[in-house]
Structures are given as structure tokens and as C-alpha cells.
């Protein structure tokens, strides 16, 4: 009898405690944040929230409700975000947010903005950070199309059908440089006239939190490939005044470390197949194929060298060359890192050895 009483008490209390009714908040009282925008203008931080609201007491199926855009400004990121949160009578729910947009003002020094969201519990670690040319006003004018923009943006995250991942999560961003971000950020392209998301067509390179170079087209694809974020290239470019286009298959990057002249040296070799090569719109014929392949390989080598100049030689080791060198000779690389002479363009050689299909 006593045993049964214990069980009944325990089960009753368990049910009472587990229901969590006391502090529950229905989905209808939530504003599901799907995009955060931050910019800086005239010493003020501009914040924008794209939220999806749903009917009171609704279930999760109706989260895809009406999209709203709220904007506000403040002296700091915290203040701007607090003010923008206060513009709605619902409590923002950030756990579904996957997109962070930084305006052109914030792009001058992105470190404080990224550091804020890189804090462990401030956002989901897979929050994708983008730069955008949109101002806060322009963003707030896009309310009628923003749900499509968000959907397109979310679709972009991760490896796409073209086997390229143009996005970067907040946890992947290297903020440990002397001035913060050493790396890159993709640009969230947006047509202001047609109010339409145009994907990622540019990458901006950063050193110590400040932008210093913009990559697009073939250079951007090559950058993603060297960064391990692309598995194939689809290039339309000009080589020696000719309009050349080609696709690649079975790409593989081989890195071989060695010692050259007493210092560690890395050979990076790109192998794979060239496909659909056209010159001025016409497919290359047998005789021209070998010559064109040589030219394309030379072109890719030049692109890679340009990227190495823009990154590794400036101490922005976004391609992890130092890791491969350390794998070969940890002590020697540590010594070179201490003296600051590891990041030399002569340390890395790139060669492209693509062959026709």
C-alpha cells in the first residue's frame, strides 16, 4: 500500500514538473528570426531583423507565415539589436536564424560584428555570414519579397548542385588574427531594381578585419577550390584575347611538402579532367586541344599564384598551407612562424596538370 502511494506521488509530481506550463510561450508569441542585418553609419549601428510571425496558438507548420522587417539603430550592437527587438510585441527566437548580413559600413571593420555572433551562445554556430551592398532603408523596402530572399539564401548554405560551397559559417571564420578576421566573406548579391537575390558572385578578402581585395568569376571559383569548398570549376574567361569556357571533372589537389634550400616548401598540384572546352563559342578540335589545355593550365596556375599573393604572402593563410608544411616539419615551421618569414610566396608553388577528357 505504502509502495503504491510512493509511486502515485512520484508519477503525479513528475507529470506536474515535466509539463513546464508555468513558463511556456506559444509559437504565436514568438517572432522567428530568419535573418539579421547589421551596418554602421554615422557612428550608429543599424540593425535589422527579418522575422516570420505566425498566428497565436498556432503550431510549427505555420512558421512560414508573414515576413516582417524591423530596423533600428543604436550606439552599440547590443543596443541596436535591443531596440529592434522592442519594435515588436513578440519575443524574438533566434534558434532558426542562419543568415547574418553585414552592410557596407560594417564591412570596413567586420571583427566586432562577427565576434559578437561568434560568442558561443549568441547564435547557432552554423550562422552564415555575408556582406551586402544593401542599406538598412533598402532592406526595409523589400518586405514583400524578403521571404523568397530568405529561402534562396538558406538554399545557398552548404555544398550546392554545382559542387561549390560559397558560404562560410560563423564557427569557420578565423577571428584570431592580430586585428580580428583574417579570411574572406561572400557577398550577398541583390538586385535593387528587381528586388531579387542574385546569389554569391563576389568574395571579399579580409586582413585584420579590413577588406583588401574582391574576387569574382574564375578567381572566386579557384579560391573556393583551394579552400576545399569546391570540387569542380565552370569557367568563362578571357585567355589571350579569346573567350574561353571550360568545365572540370574529378579535380584533385595534391600537396607535397619538402625542404628546399633549408626551408620548408610546398608543391600544390591540381589534377583532373577538362571538359566542354570552347574558344569563342566553338568547341576545340583535336589539333587545338593540346595547345588549349596548356593555355588553360597556365591560366589556372597564374590565377592560383595571384591568389597566393593575395592571401598566403600577406599572412592570410586561408588555404591552410602552413598546416601542410607543419605536417612535414613542425619544428622548422614553428621557427619560421616565430620569425615571421613562413608566409613567403616562394614557400608555395602551384601547378595545374589538367588533361582533356
Amino acid at each position, binding site marked *: 500500500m505504502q*509502495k503504491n502511494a510512493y*509511486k502515485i506521488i512520484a508519477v503525479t509530481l513528475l507529470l506536474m514538473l515535466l509539463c513546464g506550463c508555468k513558463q*511556456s510561450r506559444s509559437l504565436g508569441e514568438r517572432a522567428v528570426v530568419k535573418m539579421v542585418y547589421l551596418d554602421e553609419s554615422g557612428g550608429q549601428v543599424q540593425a535589422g531583423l527579418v522575422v516570420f510571425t505566425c498566428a497565436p496558438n498556432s503550431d510549427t507548420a505555420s512558421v512560414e507565415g508573414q515576413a516582417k522587417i524591423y530596423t533600428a539603430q543604436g550606439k552599440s550592437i547590443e543596443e541596436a539589436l535591443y531596440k529592434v527587438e522592442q519594435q515588436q510585441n513578440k519575443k524574438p527566437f533566434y534558434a532558426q536564424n542562419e543568415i547574418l548580413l553585414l552592410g557596407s559600413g560594417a564591412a570596413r571593420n567586420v571583427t566586432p560584428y562577427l565576434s559578437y555572433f561568434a560568442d*558561443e551562445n549568441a547564435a547557432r554556430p552554423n550562422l552564415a555570414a555575408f556582406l551586402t551592398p544593401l542599406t538598412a532603408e533598402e532592406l526595409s523596402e523589400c518586405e514583400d519579397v524578403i521571404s523568397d530572399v530568405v529561402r534562396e539564401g538558406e538554399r545557398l548554405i552548404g555544398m550546392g548542385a554545382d559542387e561549390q560551397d560559397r558560404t562560410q559559417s560563423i*564557427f569557420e571564420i578565423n577571428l584570431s588574427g592580430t586585428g580580428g578576421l583574417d579570411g574572406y566573406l561572400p557577398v550577398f548579391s541583390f538586385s535593387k531594381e528587381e528586388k531579387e537575390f542574385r546569389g554569391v558572385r563576389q568574395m571579399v578578402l579580409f586582413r585584420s578585419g579590413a577588406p583588401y581585395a574582391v574576387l569574382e568569376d574564375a578567381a572566386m571559383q579557384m579560391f573556393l577550390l583551394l579552400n576545399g569548398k569546391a570540387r569542380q570549376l565552370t569557367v568563362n574567361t578571357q585567355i589571350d584575347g579569346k573567350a574561353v569556357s571550360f568545365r572540370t571533372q574529378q579535380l584533385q589537389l595534391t600537396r607535397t611538402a619538402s625542404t628546399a634550400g633549408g626551408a620548408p616548401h610546398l608543391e600544390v598540384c591540381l589534377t583532373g579532367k577538362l571538359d566542354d572546352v570552347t574558344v569563342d563559342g566553338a568547341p576545340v578540335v583535336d589539333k587545338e586541344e593540346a595547345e588549349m589545355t596548356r593555355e588553360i593550365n597556365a591560366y589556372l596556375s597564374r590565377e592560383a599564384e595571384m591568389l597566393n599573393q593575395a592571401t598566403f604572402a600577406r599572412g592570410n593563410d586561408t588555404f591552410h598551407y602552413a598546416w601542410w608544411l607543419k605536417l612535414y616539419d613542425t619544428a622548422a615551421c*614553428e621557427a619560421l612562424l616565430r620569425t615571421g618569414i613562413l608566409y613567403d610566396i616562394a614557400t608555395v608553388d602551384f601547378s595545374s596538370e589538367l588533361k582533356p577528357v
Partner: protein
Amino acid sequence: MNEHTTVSAKQLCTLVFLSLAVDMAVRPFTSGGSAGAQIAILAAVLNTAVVSILLLPVLGLLRREAFTTLKGGVTFGSKALLTLSAVLFAAGGAAAMVRSEAFFRYVSDEPMPQLLVYGLFLLVVFYALRCGLESIVRVLGLAAGLFLLSMALMLVSNLGGMHLSNLTFQPFDFPEVLRTAARGFTLPPELPLFCLLSLHANREKRRPLLKTLALLCVFYIGLTFCSEAVLGMKAQLQQQTIHTLSRLGSISVFRRLDALHIAAWMLAELCKVAALAYGVQSALTPLLSHSQRGGKTCGYAVGLLAVLLAVCAGAPPETLRAVLTAGTAVLLAGTVVYGCVMEGFYAKKRV
């Protein structure tokens, strides 16, 4: 106590494995600037070896007649050891509850009041004690299965994010390994708990505790490797590294797997606290008069747990860990001394 117990040494090892493995998933909030995987793995291997060596004398005593007298609580020595065990297990359970509550608050968007969580824990523990050791270890087996499934799921969901280039290399530095090993050295109360509960388990020739410790070491190595392969140097700076991994991993359209993981980990924590509370009860029972044994010991065990919870709630995690390690070391040393003395006594008696 049930003399015809169906609890086996393997089940007790599952208890030790789950109790210590869940500590690796739900980390204390003291990290930030911990060692990289290369150093941490070597330090873990070293610590496992040291703990195994320290345990050898106690494990050697387990099958001796002298050790079995401990559960009688007749002599002054056994009473002192049982009292220390009860306090130590209660402190271990309290520390686990404090950590679980802090973790639960950290992961919840709308956290439950602290007292409510503690109350729920104590209530479940009380119910578990009423059910007995067999029930606890059976549930613990299920919880261990769920926990391992959760870990496997987390591993699979993070495979795509693992990059070897995230692993950090540094020249081999043995003093640094030693320093890291010393900083992370822990003697958890689950080790003497295993020894105490072994008295109530089926007699088996093989004591797979050392294998369990080796498995735990492998588990730790796997987690450390995965964390660094996914998060790179940021793995060392996270307060809850494994939780961050669980938030990152996704399978197909399932992007919020962390909610599933949290449920499995909290269940594991609950089982761990229940097991430690059973240790408190086992240690207290011989110390009580016959009239107070039976159902009342559950209440006394939960009461002691609640008292130590009140004491431990405000203590820094590092202090708690140090106190528990020191307490466990004293208890293990005391057990060895007690065993040797009693062994000498029995030897004289036989002569």
C-alpha cells in the same frame, strides 16, 4: 539488500562508463584555453594509465574475504570508510546535479527554475532508490545505449564538417603533456562506487573495470579528435564543446539534432545521479540500526544528497572536482589499508 542479486560486474562497468562518459559530453563550465587535441590525447592516455595503476591494489582486494567484511560495517574502520563513502557519493551526485542543471539552463531558451530542476532530480532519485539496484542498472543500460546512439549520430552528422587541416600541430613537448595531465587528473567517486557495489554483484572472476577505463580513454580520444577536426582551434575555447558539435551537425533536413542529444545526455546524468545515490544508500545501510533500515534509508540517502546539493550549489566546478578527487583518493587509500589490516587479521586467525 538483495543477496540473490542479478546485477553483474559488466552492468556495473556500464554504470561506470556512462557516468564518466556523460561528463565528457556535458562539460563543466570551466574551459577556455584548454590544451589542443594533440596534447590532450596524450595527457588522457597518461592519466588513464595512472588511474589504472592506482586502482590495481583495490581491485586485487575485491575478491578477498577481508574486503567483504566492509559491507558489514561492524568495525570502526569499516564504519569510517562507509561514512566517507556515503558523503563522497552524495557529493559526487550533488556535483553531477549542479552541472546538469547549469547545462540544462545553458541549452534552454526558457530555462526551468533551478529549484524545480533539483526537486525533479531528487524525486526521480528517490523513486529509483525505491526500485532498487537491479532496476537502476537496467535503466542505465538503456540510457547507455541511447547515449552511445546519440554520440554515433553526432559523429555521423558532423562527418562532412571534419577537416584534417583543422587539427593543430606542435612539436612534442613532454613537460606540457605532464602539466595538462596534472591539470586534468581526476579520481571520480564512480570508481569506489564500483568497488562498493561489487560487493552486491554476482561473483565473477574477471573484473572488467580496467577495460572500461581503456574504453573511456578511447571514447575521450574520439571526442577530442572530432571536436578539433570540426571546430579547429575554437574547440579549446568553447564552454560546451560537444554541445557545439551537436548544434553544428545535421542529417539531410534535420538541423536541430541537438534537442535529441540533450534529452539523451540529461537521461544519462539522471542515471548517474541515481547510481551515486544508490551508493549513498548502500554505504548508509550498515551504519543504521536494524529498525531504521528498509524504506527509510532511501529518505536518508536523498536527504544527504539534498544537504550536499545545498553545500555544492555555489562552489566553483574546479574546486568540486579537486575535492572529489581528494576524497576518492583518501577513500581508495583507506580501503587498501583496511583490506590489508583485515587480511592480516584473518591470516592470524587461520594460523
